[in-house]
């Protein structure tokens, strides 16, 4: 660890870790690498029907009539559901929570009854004996849509007389932050620098499209096996079906990527309705096009910074105005907006801050969760602004950051004291160093470098009162079982839990089996979102394992005729380290314990810090449990003739507190590096009058193997986080700084800035011409 700073709070130093912190092969790896893992789309059942969703291809309109009689008459069609066939219920679009709070007023219609608000809004559901029959039925449904004037950008949506997408005024969320006195701060400034930055709609592009299989069992329970980040939507599904919560069960499977795109309700609602209506198993697999039009996108944001700064680079005041396009339904927009507002000042200490933000409804596709969740868009703006300030002042960009960085013990703009280490500076220093020698420019090829540092929360908003449960048990042969509802979306969420249990119970990861992701059978762990799975469920497993360990150690002490504090568990043995004669295998210990009635399992709940909501007018108060800090640095080559950008080197340096599995952490950083590269340079969903015109991977370009730069990962471990063993989170933070670092590197290379993502060759050539 770096010794410049003593962290404000640190987990036990110098503990010997035997399993945690090691790059172990993940428990899910072998099944996946051999093709044996069954994903949600790989399950079938006898008598299974195949479903299809009919969607509107117009973004704003009125459904004049819809006639499914020809489709229903087709042999092999078992069921067609339209809004007329459903009770007038809504589908929740809110964050599932353990406390049952809910925003009813902003939920969405399940199927279009009359008004169509976005391209892709579902009109009817079909279930048929074969996929081919479902396709035919789809073509036989007759309907007429009368187009209505829509509104497709956030400014127009606020015009008086604009079509109202969400009552009363198209504003679906607003947050303010007030700290200090910005007027005074600007008066103290030598320079005031103002810029506006824009980000675009983007797509999660997980490789596995949404898919699931539902059936009603002998107890009348609707079972849904599906690809999701959130099995706890079962409650919302039950509400939409009008059945008690214990009559819906969601079983996950290994998820083929999520990134926030499988956080809201997707296929489960349609599956449940069709299974309930037909009493037969129903499978629904989205095509790639369904997936492009069927789930929420990343919000486009407009973020304006006005920064006051002294001539030696001290920021004296910051005003930020934020607007986000929430699309046609609210979903998680108010929360995404809050994340952006809280993140807006970056990892900088600024005494005078004024932030105003609004999320605005339009007839574009609704926007919701996406890795980075508003904080990523905030970083695109504040890190570009830092470089612009440095340029104006003629100060080194990195030095400017150093003069303003938050330091351990500092407060955020909402007045929350950060109780963990703040190592933004250390991360930047190491990332820059790792870039090494600068590549030489040649002819029209210019080389540029850029960094972005960040402050990003892990764990959910603290007034959600988030909790997570896990169960840990030891079998009579000494093997270990972990049970927890956590969904594994590819980052090794389940395996990390096994590593924690293995550490504390003195076994190897091979000795642990993890059962996860079943809303009826595994203890509920909350969502795999918000960089919370390891933090929350890791802590639950830590507590359950520690309690079990304590009991095993006490029992072993009796058996070995020793004191409990002399006994250690490791390598499948309970032993007294100083006395080789006193040792027994865990297998014998567990078997002896079983015969003596020793409780061999533990259920534990972890509770995040609970707070009240922040003050509405000032935004003051704690918002998140804690934050990760880090930096991404890149070197790019820009062809000034064609505008083409090549990312040459990409370095992520993050203080993640404690790596549970460093190889998995590197995987997050490397994956984030390429996803951020797509965000910066090539990815954009194009909507025309609200209609998505690029619903395929041949039009929507995510980075391929041809785009891979040299990537380096630097893991710093302050052991100061709230997670198990002092861990923080890395899932979202690994992505957040990448796009702004690339934007800064491009600006460095060409000497001028493109203010709108993505930074395409055309925009670069245009910027160079001006």
């Amino acid at each position, binding site marked *: 660890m770096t010794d410049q700073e003593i962290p404000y709070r640190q987990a036990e130093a110098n503990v010997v870790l035997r399993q945690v912190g090691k*790059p172990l*092969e*993940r428990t*899910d*790896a*072998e*099944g*996946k*690498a*051999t*093709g*044996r*893992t*069954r*994903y949600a*789309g*790989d399950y079938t059942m006898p008598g299974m029907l195949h479903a299809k969703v009919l969607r509107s291809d117009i973004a704003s309109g009125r459904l004049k009539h819809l006639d499914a009689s020809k489709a229903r008459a087709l042999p092999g069609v078992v069921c067609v559901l339209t809004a007329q066939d459903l009770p007038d219920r809504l589908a929740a679009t809110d964050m599932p929570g353990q406390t049952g709070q809910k925003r009813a007023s902003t939920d969405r219609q399940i199927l279009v009854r009359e008004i169509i608000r976005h391209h892709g809004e579902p009109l009817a559901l079909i279930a048929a004996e074969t996929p081919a029959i479902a396709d035919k039925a789809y073509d036989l449904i007759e309907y007429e849509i009368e187009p209505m004037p829509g509104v497709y950008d956030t400014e127009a949506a606020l015009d008086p007389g604009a079509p109202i997408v969400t009552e009363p005024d198209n504003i679906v969320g607003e947050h303010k932050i007030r700290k200090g006195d910005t007027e005074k701060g600007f008066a103290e400034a030598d320079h005031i620098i103002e810029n506006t930055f824009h980000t675009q709609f983007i797509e*999660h*592009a*997980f*490789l*596995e*499209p949404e898919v699931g299989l539902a059936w009603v069992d002998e107890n009348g329970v609707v079972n849904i096996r599906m690809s999701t980040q959130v099995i706890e939507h079962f409650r919302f599904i039950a509400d939409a079906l009008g059945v008690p919560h214990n009559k819906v069960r969601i079983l996950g499977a*290994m*998820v*083929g*990527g999520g*990134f926030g795109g499988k956080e809201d309700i997707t296929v489960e609602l349609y599956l449940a309705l069709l299974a309930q209506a037909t009493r037969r198993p129903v499978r629904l*697999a989205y*095509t*790639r096009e369904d997936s492009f039009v069927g789930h929420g996108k990343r919000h486009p944001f407009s973020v304006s910074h006005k920064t006051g700064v002294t001539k030696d680079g001290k920021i004296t005041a910051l005003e930020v105005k934020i607007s986000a396009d929430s699309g046609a339904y609210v979903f998680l927009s108010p929360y995404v907006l809050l994340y952006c507002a809280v993140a807006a000042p970056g990892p900088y200490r600024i005494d005078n801050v004024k932030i105003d933000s609004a999320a605005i409804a339009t007839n574009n596709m609704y926007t919701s969760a996406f890795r980075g969740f508003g904080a990523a868009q905030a970083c695109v703006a504040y890190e570009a602004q830092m470089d612009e300030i440095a340029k104006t002042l003629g100060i080194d960009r990195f030095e400017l950051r150093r003069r303003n960085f938050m330091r351990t013990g500092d407060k955020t703009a909402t007045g929350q004291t950060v109780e963990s280490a703040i190592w933004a500076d250390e991360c930047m220093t190491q990332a820059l160093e790792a870039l090494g020698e600068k590549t030489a420019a040649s002819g029209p090829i210019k080389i540029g470098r850029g960094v972005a540092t960040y402050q990003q929360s892990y764990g959910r908003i603290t007034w959600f009162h988030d909790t997570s449960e896990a169960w840990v048990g030891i079998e009579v042969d000494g093997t270990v079982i972990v049970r927890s509802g956590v969904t594994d*979306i*590819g*980052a*090794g969420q389940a395996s990390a839990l096994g590593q924690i249990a293995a550490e504390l119970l003195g076994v190897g990861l091979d000795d642990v089996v993890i059962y996860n992701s079943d809303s009826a059978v595994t203890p509920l762990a909350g969502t795999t979102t918000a960089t919370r799975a390891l933090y929350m469920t890791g802590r639950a497993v830590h507590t359950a394992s520690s309690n079990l360990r304590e009991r095993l150690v006490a029992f072993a002490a009796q058996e070995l005729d020793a004191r409990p504090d002399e006994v250690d568990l490791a390598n499948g043995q309970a032993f007294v380290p100083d006395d080789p004669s006193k040792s027994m295998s865990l297998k014998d210990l567990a078997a002896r314990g079983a015969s003596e009635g020793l409780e061999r399992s533990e259920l534990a709940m972890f509770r995040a810090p609970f707070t009240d909501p922040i003050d509405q007018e000032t935004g003051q108060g704690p918002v998140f449990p804690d934050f990760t800090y880090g930096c991404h640095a890149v070197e790019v080559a820009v062809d000034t003739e064609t505008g083409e950008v090549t990312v040459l080197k990409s370095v992520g340096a993050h203080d993640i507190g404690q790596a549970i599995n460093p*190889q*998995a952490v*590197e*995987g997050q950083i*490397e*994956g*984030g*590096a*390429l*996803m951020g590269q797509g965000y910066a340079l090539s990815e954009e969903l194009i909507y025309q009058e609200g209609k998505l015109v690029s619903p*395929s*991977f*041949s039009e929507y370009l*995510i980075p*391929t*193997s*041809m785009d*891979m730069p040299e*990537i380096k990962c630097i893991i710093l471990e302050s052991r100061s986080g709230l997670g198990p063993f002092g861990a923080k989170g890395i899932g979202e933070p690994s992505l957040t700084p990448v796009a702004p670092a690339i934007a800064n590197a491009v600006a460095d290379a060409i000497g001028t800035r493109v203010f709108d993502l993505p930074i395409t060759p055309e925009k670069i050539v245009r910027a160079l011409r001006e």
Partner: protein
Amino acid sequence: MSLEKAITVEINGVARELSAPANETLLDCLRRHGQFEVKSGCEKGDCGACAVQIDGEAVDSCLTLAWMVEGKKVTTLEGLNDADSPHPLIAAFLEHGAVQCGYCTPGIMIAAEAMLRDIPDPTDDDIALALSGNLCRCTGYTKIFTAIKQAAEVLRAGGGDD
């Protein structure tokens, strides 16, 4: 009703007879017959998740009609996982953590194995080109490249013989 016929094909070394309608893709046909390791990501030839080898050559099974493989040999990831000697690619992917969500993995292994038979000592550019039709959203490709290079080394040293 579209015409249906039984096609004979060798899948992963086992002679099989698959019934398939004339318009069915090899992707759908293989999955319908239990080869679930062949994944569907786009059904348009854009993602490579569905890649299989036909007589040793990697192709997108979503763009191939099932009837076209009559009398041919089809290899999927299952075929690289010979119980006695799993392909070194599998061990290398495990060792280097090249698998995250794993949905792209079957297609990537199939593409990589085909390349390694042509290019035993691939450069990064060779690998990039061979995988250019296989999207991965999780890994940033980095560990995949490392794993493929290690597997190549093992193969050159005569490991994983079959």
